[in-house]
């Protein structure tokens, strides 16, 4: 089954994103709390879309993004990676883009943008 991976250290945000996306598209939703978990889970479930918070303890989103791109499986390395960024962090966006991020959602993100994005990808 096609899947979406939601990565944020804040359980509140993970819950919000997964509740928003539940039943909207035929994706199975997975959650991870940091970059390390994210890379492990991506290797396992081959997500088509990854929502990746840029600022996390242990391994941040940029590093996780790079490692997901380097994963030795076709699906995850081709995933659409959507970075969740804080407003006004231009420099981070540039770094994330070079690490392989495709799209950006600025926090606080618009739930409608989130839904439209997943709708387009499904």
């Amino acid at each position, binding site marked *: 089954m096609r899947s979406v991976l939601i990565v944020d250290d*804040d359980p*509140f*945000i993970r819950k*919000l994103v997964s509740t928003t996306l539940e039943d909207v598209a035929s994706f199975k939703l997975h959650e991870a709390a940091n970059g390390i978990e994210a890379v492990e889970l991506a290797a396992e479930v081959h997500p088509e879309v990854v929502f990746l918070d840029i600022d996390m303890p242990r391994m941040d989103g940029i590093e996780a993004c790079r490692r997901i791109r380097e994963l030795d499986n076709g699906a995850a390395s081709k995933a659409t990676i959507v970075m969740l960024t804080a407003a006004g962090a231009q420099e981070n966006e540039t770094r994330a883009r070079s690490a392989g991020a495709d799209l950006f959602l600025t*926090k*606080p*993100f*618009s*739930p*409608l943008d989130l839904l439209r994005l997943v709708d387009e990808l499904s």
Partner: protein
Amino acid sequence: MPGKGTITDVSVLQERLASVERSAAEKEQQLERYAADLRETFKRERERRHELRRSYMATVRALCNAVEARDAYTGKHAERVAAYGMEIAKVLDAPFSEDPEVEFGFLLHDVGKVAVPDSILWKPEPLTPEERLLMERHPVVGWEILCEIDFLGEAKLVVRHHHERWDGDGYPDRLAGDLIPLAARVFAVADVLDALTTVRPYRQPSSIEDARAVIEEARGTQFDPEVVAAFMEIPPSRLDAIRLEVG
């Protein structure tokens, strides 16, 4: 120990507090964003609902005009009957008095006449029994034409039963009393009111007063007594105003 913390402890605590506050503020902003999107979605959905209602109405009117275009005499008969019918419904406090579906039914009541040949529809002499049978099929034909249109809901029952009589002597299903849908019972009164008060090839129009007397006379035979009672509550001046308004 309380009150014996070092400066380092205090600064660690302050830092932790600041981080908690930051996180709470982020959550709050995120919730506000959800609320804003919800509000916008609601407004858009409301606008679409109105748009949909307008286009349903325009579609129904177009269909209704197509039916009436064949009949130079009745003119805006359907629109007047719909307006009278909704007025009676208001007095009755009928559950459908705010319901656009029933108004659609009033407007479309004769749509089945598209299947009646001109030679019968226009025949000045009395109809033969066969011709009458064909003519009396129009409520069923109308119902069949509309039966797949979901948004018409109850309207389809008005179309099917608008020629039933309270005493069971009507058509097509010879329903009597409460078995006739209320909207169709209301329609029957409005229909006769308009037929009597407009010019027909064979006679001059009656006054509203005369029409009221005719309807009162048929209370309990052709018409539901309660619907007639509600109708009689409407001042003739109000009925006149509706007639002039629709044209």
